[in-house]
């Protein structure tokens, strides 16, 4: 039975692959493929669950072969199936099939019909990878797939400004969640000296958990960061309503129900790991509780239907966090299902709310329920009301604490000019490469310092590219170079085969080169390719856009690209006692992904300013 688990990932992958080759105008065929894929999946899920229950409901476990031939333990593919997977699997497949059935008609004649179903299948693939994942590595792959499909669905109306801008906003929060996973993964590697399957954490008695405890707390905090970002807990809650830019059914499935509960899944999956840590449990519970309280206030003042559903959902997820932290796994699972179903339903019927509430509206003589502002001491109540209307300024807060500093660091690095690159950094790099090949020349104590220095250079380049507005090609080159410095940094940190570096850099060179070609191609026909505004070139250059998108993914280390495997290998060479280096490298990965998607969005998405839509329609 365990051997069948991989099928649940292969099936959506197959559906997705098939959906790529169907012509755009074959609406029925496109939706049939999606419906068929998910229908078979649902059926198989039901069979598997029945069989599993019949066999005593023991956790199923499937280990794959190690992908890398380098004798590394980094990439063991491992799937598991237990109660949590079963609940997420059945809920997910059921809701997705409902949504697909719904969308078959709802999206009729909509431009992007194929794109919609393709992205839903990609989402479903990512979702299944996550819920079947047996270790952090597999989970991270699904995590990334989910992130990209989210970005694509929020920016479904890609020629409008707000969907694209909000898609970027959400993607940046997702990248933050990625830092959490990356660091948790890195630390766990060192804790167990290799990839550890989640079910082995389960089987470890508490006493066998390797100490020291701060490491456990660190990993748990990273898990909490990832879970809170993905499940829109404080301080990230503001992204959820802003993600509701796509067609209503995609909003319902992603942000109403499935995607937003993935943080909860992560917590439940890792529960055996942190359950013994009272501090961690309190922190998780407190995050959930605080989120519940704050977002309930926000939900109560929302004047738009989708905003209200989003915040109401977040507040319930906060409660689920509390339930998980308290150890009520079954309650949390039931709560998850109920919340997912309810919010999907509410979003799908949300357009009805006008006719329904207007028909039932009280007459002119009716006085409305007073605001909570008046139920509390006035000054306090009023303050709460105003804060709730402003969503407690969470967006501005995160902006101020995170993105603004990052951008100003990037801006202050204005000296990364093309000339400096050629005259200084390339010679230095070549010198570094020479030393890397002759490490005996460098004192053993100096090597980690060099590693750190090179990582700082990499991060600086990425930060510069992130803040870059004008010269887009230079920005791109900086992002490519940053990977080279990372590789260099890693080679000083530990002695290992250069084959790994070549694997890593081959991916970088390939995607970097293709991307540069695309930019050149675009520069020939379009004079403006700066980043100060959106250009919407996807309308006029769809082919270039697709290729460029793939090269962005390649450079950003999207799963299954050589860069991804390389990045993972690089990570495994950072020592347990080097949190600074680990942080720098993960920050570089995250920031570079963000910068890449931003370049793509600015160039190809947004209003097409060159064509007929002259007026940039800023507010829709």
């Amino acid at each position: 039975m365990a051997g069948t688990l991989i099928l649940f990932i292969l099936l959506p992958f197959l559906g997705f692959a098939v959906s790529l080759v169907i012509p755009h105008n074959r609406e029925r065929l496109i939706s049939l493929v999606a419906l068929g894929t998910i229908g078979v999946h649902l059926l198989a899920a039901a069979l598997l669950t029945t069989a599993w229950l019949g066999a005593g409901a023991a956790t199923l476990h499937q280990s794959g072969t190690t992908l890398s031939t380098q004798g590394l333990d980094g990439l063991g593919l491992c799937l598991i199936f237990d109660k949590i997977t079963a609940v997420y699997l059945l809920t997910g497949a059921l809701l997705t099939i409902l949504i697909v059935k719904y969308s078959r008609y709802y999206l009729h004649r909509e431009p992007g019909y194929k794109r919609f179903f393709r992205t839903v299948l990609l989402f479903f693939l990512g979702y299944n990878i996550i819920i079947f994942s047996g270790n952090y590595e597999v989970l991270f792959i699904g995590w990334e797939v989910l992130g990209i499909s989210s970005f694509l669905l929020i920016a479904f109306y890609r020629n409008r400004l707000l969907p694209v801008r909000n898609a970027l906003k959400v993607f940046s929060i997702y990248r933050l969640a990625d830092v959490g996973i990356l660091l948790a993964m890195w630390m766990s590697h060192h804790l167990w000296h290799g990839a550890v399957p989640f079910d082995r954490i389960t089987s470890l008695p508490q006493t066998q958990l390797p100490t020291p405890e701060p490491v456990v707390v660190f990993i748990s905090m990273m898990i909490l960061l990832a879970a809170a970002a993905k499940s829109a807990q404080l301080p990230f809650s503001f992204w959820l309503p802003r993600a509701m830019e796509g067609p209503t059914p995609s909003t319902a499935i992603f942000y109403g129900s499935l995607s937003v509960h993935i943080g909860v899944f992560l917590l439940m999956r890792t529960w055996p790991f942190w359950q013994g840590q009272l501090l961690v449990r309190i922190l998780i519970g407190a995050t959930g509780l605080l989120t519940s309280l704050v977002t309930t206030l926000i939900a109560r003042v929302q004047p738009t239907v989708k905003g209200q559903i989003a915040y109401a959902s977040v507040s319930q997820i906060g409660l689920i966090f509390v339930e998980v932290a308290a150890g009520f796994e079954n309650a949390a699972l039931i709560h998850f299902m109920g919340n997912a179903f309810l919010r999907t339903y509410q979003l799908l019927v949300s357009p009805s709310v006008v006719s329904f509430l207007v028909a039932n509206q009280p007459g002119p003589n009716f006085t409305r329920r007073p605001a909570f502002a008046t139920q509390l001491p006035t000054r306090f109540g009023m303050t709460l009301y105003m804060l709730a209307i402003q969503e407690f300024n969470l967006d501005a807060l995160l902006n101020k604490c995170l993105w603004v500093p990052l951008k100003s660091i990037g801006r202050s690095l204005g000296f990364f000019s093309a000339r400096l690159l050629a005259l200084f950094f390339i010679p230095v790099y070549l010198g570094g490469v020479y030393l890397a090949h002759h490490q005996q020349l460098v004192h053993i104590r100096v090597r980690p310092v060099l590693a750190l220095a090179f990582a700082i250079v990499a991060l600086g380049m990425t930060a510069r590219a992130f803040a870059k507005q004008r010269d887009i090609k230079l920005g791109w080159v900086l992002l490519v170079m940053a990977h080279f410095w990372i590789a260099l940094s890693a080679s000083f940190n530990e002695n290992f085969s250069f084959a790994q570096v070549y694997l890593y850099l081959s991916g970088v060179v390939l995607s970097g080169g293709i991307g540069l070609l695309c930019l050149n191609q675009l520069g020939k026909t379009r004079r403006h390719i700066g980043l100060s505004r959106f250009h919407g070139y996807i309308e006029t250059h769809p082919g270039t856009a697709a290729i460029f998108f793939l090269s962005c993914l390649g450079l950003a280390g999207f799963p299954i690209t050589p860069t991804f495997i390389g990045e993972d290998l690089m990570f495994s060479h950072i020592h347990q006692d080097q949190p600074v280096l680990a942080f720098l490298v993960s920050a570089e990965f995250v920031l570079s992904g963000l910068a890449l998607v931003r370049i793509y969005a600015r160039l190809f998405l947004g209003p097409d300013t060159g064509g007929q839509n002259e007026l940039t329609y800023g507010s829709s």
Partner: protein
Amino acid sequence: MRAGGSTESMPYGEDKSGRKASFDPEKVLGQLKEFLPAQAPLKDFIHHNTLHAFQDLPFEQAVTEASRIFGYRTYLHLQEYRALYQQGRITHAILERAILERAGEQPLADWLEKLLDKPYHVYNHPRIGALRVYWKKNYQLNLDAHVHPTLFRILSAYLDQGVASSSFPASQEGLLASLRAMERGSLTSFFKTQRARRLLLDTSCGLEGLLELVVGDPSLFEHYLFDQQFAHPGWSGMVAHIEAHPQSLTVLRSISLQELIIFELLLEIDALDFRLGEDWKPLGAEIKTKPEYLFADLQGREIDLVLAIWQTAFEWSYYDQVLSGISGQNPKVEKQGQSSAQYVFCLDDRSGSLRRYIEQLDPLCETFGTPGFFGVEFFFEPSPQSPYQKQCPALVDPGYLIKATGEATRTTAGVYFPGRADSLLRGWLISQTIGFWAAFRLFLNIVIPSFGLVSTSLFGRKQRDSRLTVEYDPSYPTEGGLQVGFKPAEMAERVENLLRGIDLTDGFAPIVYIVGHGASSVNNPHYAAYDCGACSGRPGGINARVFARMANHPQVRQLLRAKGIDIPDGTWFVGAQHDTTRDDMSFFDTGLLPAAFLKKHRKQKETIREALDRNAKERSRRFELIDTGLDIRKVHQLVRARSVSLFEPRPELNHATNAVCIVGSRQLSKNLFLDRRSFLNSYNPAHDPKGVLLGEVMKAAVPVCGGINLEYYFSRMDNDRLGAGSKLPHNIVGLFAVANGIEGDLRTGLPSQMVELHDPVRLLMIVEQSPEVVMKVIDQTPQLQQWLFNGWVHLVAVHPQTRALARLTGRRFTDYLPLGGPPDRIGDMDRLLESRHENIPVHLLPS
């Protein structure tokens, strides 16, 4: 041009372009209100000319100016016209004629070359936005991105009609007063910096003072305000509408456009202070060359004329078919014996095909068309204490109230709806219990749509069972200045007017059906746009019901006899309502009628049922996902299912494809297949030699049909700016509007799903009357002149006796000779309907 001021030139205070050096707030606010979209809250969706502010100009000049100033697209793309020509949908003969009417000196061949082949690089830089763009250019600040989210959030919370469970602490004195009270009474602020907050609390801060601070140069104030407000036309238009019509909100809120502008300026100051500190220079001081004045005179461009000619040719290629069909109709009406039944329908384009099928199935019956409020204007209170609904055209101001009694129960608000599950504990309980039930219901609806979920069927059994206070009773107190019910003399007057208007004053059949219409749909925030336009976007069944009650009233009949209309005792009026989405019909108050009569009614109902099936089949040909060739009952079931399917964004296609309005006897178009593209208003020229009745008809029909037509026209031409875009991502804001996502501007106009099949042509009024009488009517009716003389609606008069055609161009009638031959005759109706989704040319019905 006129919006910038006057035609007299002013020697001082104006620069070359017409920009004034000083600023007159009253005047600029007035202009803004005129140009902003005038759309009512969703529950009162009423079709109107989207470019109403330009209606005092000739159509072609107006749309060109609108496009150059505001960036709207007002014609199809040149390539689209050329493609229509290639497909033969614009005929060559008509195109040549359109050129010759306009060409002036240049030879035809030159023009043909221009229209068909010459490449034009149209890159339109609208004038709107050209000033405020300098925030980004010179200050590197995207002001809109900072200001809009806060502004929209506060406006929507303030105006919210019942989405949020905690309402805004609004003050009676308006938005700014409420904000001041909040700023004073709390520990936090909507502003990030101090100066803007101080300016708000200091009540002396006025519009001009703030503009002085932000813009500096008074000659730029007007342009700045237009730029600012047209960055979110949806919100500004809604606020301006509510300012002018506070009653359009059920939960009253006092707000004005000026308050919105002041608050927005304060938020701009806040954003600027936050980014730049307090010592930034006003925008006017930082720009070297002033952008072109918004309303400065425009240079004519060849492309505008080319597009105008194409559009004219496109329109007349269709009109010509209709006119050639009509001019071939026999003017002599042979009066048959007694009619089996008479039907009075709304003039709505959707009623046309149903009338055709009823006539076909029962050749002895007669049908009529008139605006669907049937001349009875009143407010309706559907259940005790509920808000009043206006049941007449938007321009009419009724003095009567009709209440429904005996149906006091109200559907309980489902817990499924948002707003009921947003509090923490209730949400916890609901999600664990009803969440699962919700999934089950959802599953059922998606698999079997006919499982009614949240139908907005507004006139089901509920209305049929209720009682109405149609007749005035001295014991009723007046409510809100409205008289409850009508007195007999008032009833008789209304019945008489309607019957004379449609020329039904003798030869009454035993049954006269008065058929209003409405539409049932689910998941459709624009539901009001699907109902009867003559009833302010509400179902017209209630008017039909009231009219029938009046016409059956013994005292009313007595009064009518005295006025020369003798309705025999054997004749009964029955109110009915046609559900245009489902193609079902319900009848009201049949229980009050004698039993012997009911037999006839039942027989007639059979005819109606059959006609409704056929009508559903004809409509189904437009739906790509329904196979029109299936069994007729099955097709009707599929059509019905659309009205209850949550996932159906096109429950019906509403007025899409409307193009013509025929005012005249049924004989004019009875034998023509017009493909549901025509409004039909009954009128008998023989009994109206002076055009008195015609004046009344046109006063109602031109603005109602013209408004519908132009709203479709502009929503189709520029769905991004003048329409509402795709309805798929819409989010309901405060129950009064839709926006994209949660941060977007309100969307006005019609969603793309409603207009995608619409051929954007202006309305052609075809009036059966001599040109002289028609001209006299127009001369005496000033409110028609802009519509007709400026070409927002075309007009052709058909001579009642000779069927000669005369077309109104400018202010004169000229003879019109159709270029096309007589239409083809339909051989097999079913085959024709099953053959295609697109428009079908005019045909003669099978003989």
